[in-house]
């Protein structure tokens, strides 16, 4: 018992301090304000946690400070928004993306192939570049001519109210399916497939270990075949699939958006790790700079594709009910009507923003914890965080785990983006501010500590929301008549100050272990 207290002293002190502060905060405001602020803090904390946990997994295992994490969060949000608002574009993109990926799915085949071909030294140096160039040329020829539904983004910078009105009138999608005009479909499909295979072959030749004998695993063929099937189905049934998606209930559409955003986030993360970060493991500082550069590029990409207007993702109907029975007074009532708000302790709580998001945060927290503690992958990750070289020496392919963890981390960030989009809206800056929050949360909790990420995120969320609330109410300064009203910019400053103080007392964060 004594040992337990001594081990978790910091945690206990922190919890006591939080409880004390919440108690103090509760004195100064009404109960309904307190409940709403508390829930709001938890919601902000959950979104922060989704970003922070992925970041901390990546930093713990790979020692990469992925400064592009906030940008990836934003990209996830934008992808989710596109799925909900324009499913036809997503369907149009499916075929070319699957075809481009399919060549890379055959990864094991290429070293085999190159070991069979005998080439002169000069030819060997020349071939990868030539293949890559051919691939790029073919892609450059086909992709601009491939029909993808283009639409004016500005039309969609509107409030959710008009959006749901349009949806209810059936005028949401003036679908004008894009068609092949300049090239024939067969040329486009085969060209994309060939370009992807050339590109993958060229890339595999760049590797130094091209000579090793590899057994071709059946898995890669299955992956290849699956991608091909996806591409062909997406191509053949493009229109009917688009119509089905458009006609879909908004709840299902939201779910699909979440899945697509997570998958594309994970794919993007895996790609980033495998191509850009992997060559830099011997130069840690350069990884940092690389991710900084990627973050700038990502923001510009978003600006180029989606422009600068701010959007709002419509909430799924499940959380968006209105009518005479709303706001619901208890959960059974809410379940019957799916009201957008619910009355809790006399406060009107928005169900999606303040109840659903914290629940998702909790679910993710638990499932990742289970993944870390109870699965083989989690065991490897935990061991890798402690001593990467030892794990490598035990014969585990750490590189593959690296890619998976990176993909997982970025996927979590993208999930956070999709979930945050209906409540905070989308803008070009949503990534930066949230990333600063996540960084602060991690610094407070301990950079590589998973529970620490959760604790820090909740702390940051609560403190920000309570300070915003007190900014509206005003803080009476003791022994004077002055009521101090902190202006909104002081909110980030307060958490940053907290971080600096905590780091100065405990350089490894609240739950971080001494190195």
């Amino acid at each position, binding site marked *: 018992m004594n040992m337990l207290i001594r081990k978790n002293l910091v945690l206990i002190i922190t919890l006591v301090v939080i409880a004390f502060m919440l108690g103090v905060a509760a004195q100064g405001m009404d109960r309904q304000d307190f409940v709403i602020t508390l829930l709001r803090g938890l919601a902000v904390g959950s979104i922060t946690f989704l970003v922070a946990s992925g970041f901390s997994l990546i930093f713990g295992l790979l020692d990469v400070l992925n400064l592009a994490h906030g940008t990836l969060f934003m990209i996830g949000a934008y992808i989710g928004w596109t799925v909900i608002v324009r499913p036809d574009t997503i369907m149009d993109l499916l075929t070319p993306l699957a075809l481009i990926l399919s060549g890379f799915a055959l990864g094991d085949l290429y070293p085999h192939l190159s070991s069979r071909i005998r080439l002169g030294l000069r030819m060997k140096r020349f071939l990868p570049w030539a293949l890559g160039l051919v691939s790029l040329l073919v892609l450059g020829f086909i992709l601009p001519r491939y029909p993808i539904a283009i639409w004016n983004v500005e039309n969609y910078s509107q409030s959710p109210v008009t959006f749901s009105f349009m949806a209810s009138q059936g005028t949401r999608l003036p679908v004008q399916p894009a068609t092949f005009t300049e090239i024939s479909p067969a040329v486009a499909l085969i060209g994309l497939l060939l370009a992807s295979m050339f590109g993958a072959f060229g890339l595999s030749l760049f590797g130094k270990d091209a000579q090793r004998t590899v057994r071709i695993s059946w898995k890669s063929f299955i992956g290849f075949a699956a991608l091909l099937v996806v591409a062909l189905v997406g191509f053949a049934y493009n229109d009917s699939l688009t119509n089905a998606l458009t006609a879909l209930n908004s709840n299902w559409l939201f779910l699909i958006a979440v899945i697509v955003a997570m998958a594309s986030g994970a794919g993007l993360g895996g790609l980033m790790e495998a191509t850009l970060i992997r060559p830099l493991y011997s130069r840690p500082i350069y990884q940092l*700079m690389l991710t900084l550069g990627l973050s*700038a590029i990502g923001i*510009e990409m978003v600006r180029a594709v989606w422009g600068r207007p701010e959007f709002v993702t419509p909430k799924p109907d499940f959380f968006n009910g209105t009518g005479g029975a709303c706001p619901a007074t208890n959960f059974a009532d809410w379940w019957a009507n799916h009201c957008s708000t619910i009355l809790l302790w006399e406060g009107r709580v928005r169900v999606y923003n303040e109840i659903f998001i914290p629940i998702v945060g909790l679910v993710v927290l638990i499932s990742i914890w289970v993944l870390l503690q109870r699965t083989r992958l989690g065991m490897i990750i935990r061991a890798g965080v402690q001593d990467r070289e030892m794990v490598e020496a035990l014969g585990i392919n750490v590189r593959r785990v690296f890619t998976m963890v990176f993909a997982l981390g970025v996927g979590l960030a993208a999930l956070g983006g999709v979930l945050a989009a209906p409540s905070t809206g989308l803008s070009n800056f949503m990534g930066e501010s949230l990333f600063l929050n996540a960084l602060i949360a991690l610094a407070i909790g301990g*950079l590589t500590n998973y529970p620490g990420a959760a604790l820090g995120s909740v702390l940051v969320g609560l403190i920000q929301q309570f300070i915003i609330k007190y900014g509206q109410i005003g803080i009476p300064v003791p022994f004077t008549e002055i009521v101090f009203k902190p202006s909104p*910019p*002081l909110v980030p400053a307060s958490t940053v100050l907290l971080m600096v103080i905590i*780091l*100065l007392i405990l*350089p490894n964060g609240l739950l971080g272990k001494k190195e």
Partner: protein
Amino acid sequence: MTRTSIFAKNRGLLITLVLLVLLPFIVGLFDGASPVAVWNNLSGNSKFIQGLAIEIFILALYALSYDVIFGITGLLSFGHSMFFAVGAYLTGIAIKTLDLSLPATFGIVFVASIVQAVLFGLVLPRVRGITFALVTLGIASVFHIVIMSTELGTYTGADVGLQGVIVPEWISPANERLRFYFIALVVLISIYLLYQRFVNSPTGRVCTAIRENESRAQMLGYNTFYFKLAALTLSSFTAALAGFLHTLYQPIVSPNVAGLGFTVTALLIILIGGVGTLQGAFVGAIVYRLLDFGLRRYIGESASFINGAVYVLFVLFIPFGIVGTWRLRSFQIKQGWESLLKAFHPDSHQ
């Protein structure tokens, strides 16, 4: 050390200096303006080039100050823009609000730069590596937020930026730009010489040792804290000086100079030029500013996309920067050049 040997050692520097002194007049000649016209600050292409060069000098000064803590001492600070912004804003406030003379302003900036270096120094012994980067990021973003806050709007101009600073007539960048150009040049060259002296001094050597292996430096009996503090102080002073010049030169000081983006600019500049090579700051500043200028002119908005791409390409393919790669490979480059002159022979190296 005799005088001739100093000149022989710094031959490249001297040539650069002479070229830079002659630059406004040469550009003027190309433009058809006589040196007298350039001397009298008549508007023309030369004056425009002078303005660009002054911006490059200020950026180079700022990048130099980052190089000494990041490239030489190995401290990764994400709060470096604060050093610059303190100099810039203090200058503006001292001249505009407090109505001080230029030397007095400079004195204030000098003192403030020392004070903030000590402030950063306070956290030095406690945190290292990434945590130091985070703490400095934190301190700097608090400063950024304070500058942006409406409470101090009358002094700092909040999110619009500090404007309306009346610069003394004898140094005004509009009418006496050539003079400003030479002053900036002299400041830059003297700071560069100071830095070279610092890096080659025993103190600088210990700083390099701290970058390579701090524990070993401590084992050898050096109290690394003092050396890091010395590097920080020097860096802070230089960055504040750059901020001082910036406020005098620019009509408006945007709060962006206190943000993380401006620290990243410094990082980018010394990455382009070469980390830890003092000349890299010059080269990097030239490349960065001209690239930025050209891209904004011909491509427009998406310039920062290309900037990011340049950044990534440099990290992946030229990690030692232009100067660093030149130093590493100068022998091979010379050799390759010679063999190229003899006959085309692709497999000469590697």
